[in-house]
């Protein structure tokens, strides 16, 4: 069986880095979805009753 050298340590580190990157990507994705929702609600609130004011 090959001995465990520093190469494995580097692999572990890159696994950890990958995990952190994945978490960050999820946080950014959730942040963007949250922002889209926030601006949607903000627009509805700012427009108020005018949302339905669409004369044919």
């Amino acid at each position, binding site marked *: 069986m090959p001995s465990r050298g520093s190469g494995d340590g580097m692999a572990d580190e890159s696994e950890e880095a990958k995990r952190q990157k994945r978490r*960050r990507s999820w946080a950014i994705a959730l942040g963007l979805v949250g922002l889209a929702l926030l601006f949607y609600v903000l627009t509805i*609130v700012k427009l108020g009753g005018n949302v339905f004011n669409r004369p044919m």
Partner: protein
Amino acid sequence: MSEVGAQLVPPAAAASGLAGIGDYVALLKPRVMALVVFTALTGMAAAPGTIHPVLAFVALLAIAVGAGASGALNMWYDADIDARMQRTAARPIPRGKIPADEALAFGIFLSLFSVMTLGLAVGWVAASLLALTIGFYLFIYTMWLKRRTPQNIVIGGAAGAFPPMIGWACVTGGVSIDSCLLFLIIFMWTPPHFWALALYRCRDYERAGVPMLPVVAGAAETRRQILIYSLILVPLALAPVATGLGGIAYGAIASVLGARFLWLAFDVWRQADADGSDCRAKRLFLFSILYLFLIFAGLLAEHAVARLW
């Protein structure tokens, strides 16, 4: 002293690229953010007029993010100082968790985002005040005053005093004597608060080369200044009763807490060289946080009850 701090971080502390979400949250100084949101909320509640709850929520979110952004920009610039101080050495940049450039980009993005959001949600007076707060904290306090003068936290304290004015402007769209009064209370509270901290962290500031008052003028002068500012602060905190902004409950809270504040400041001043003087300064520092929180909570509660009644 004029180098940009972030450039002085030793290569050994180069960012590992393993920053977690918690490190980015730490970059925003969450405890400062909480106090900023709380004082802004009080400004909002105390202001005459109404605001839609969703708009109020968005405004508070933008103010919180703006405060966090200025915290990130401060940590970017002061990374060298932070690395030398025990209190701040574990921050994400000196620890090598987040690269300085990334903190700068993060801070700039959040600053622009928060100001734009506040402007679109509630108005451009509030947004301008938020932009002024971020700019003041970064350019006037962090870059200009902090490393040059013992008056750094006196003038720089204005940055921390703006949030209730921003909250007020979110509702009224302007500035008034009452909102300036809320600004002045925090402005006068900042020196005794920070100098009490600096008294028992003096060596830390000395090592970092930050000219805080105890480092430059000595502990005795700092104690004298703490007492002087406390003597101005306590009556000033009662002024809202005179203008009608605060009622009887607020007046009672501000009087009792003000008396305690004055006593602690007096205690720090009179027992300058006695054993445990650090302990007295620490007690004043901790009480000053409670003091500001409770007088603003009193004002907030009074206005919340009045609105619900």
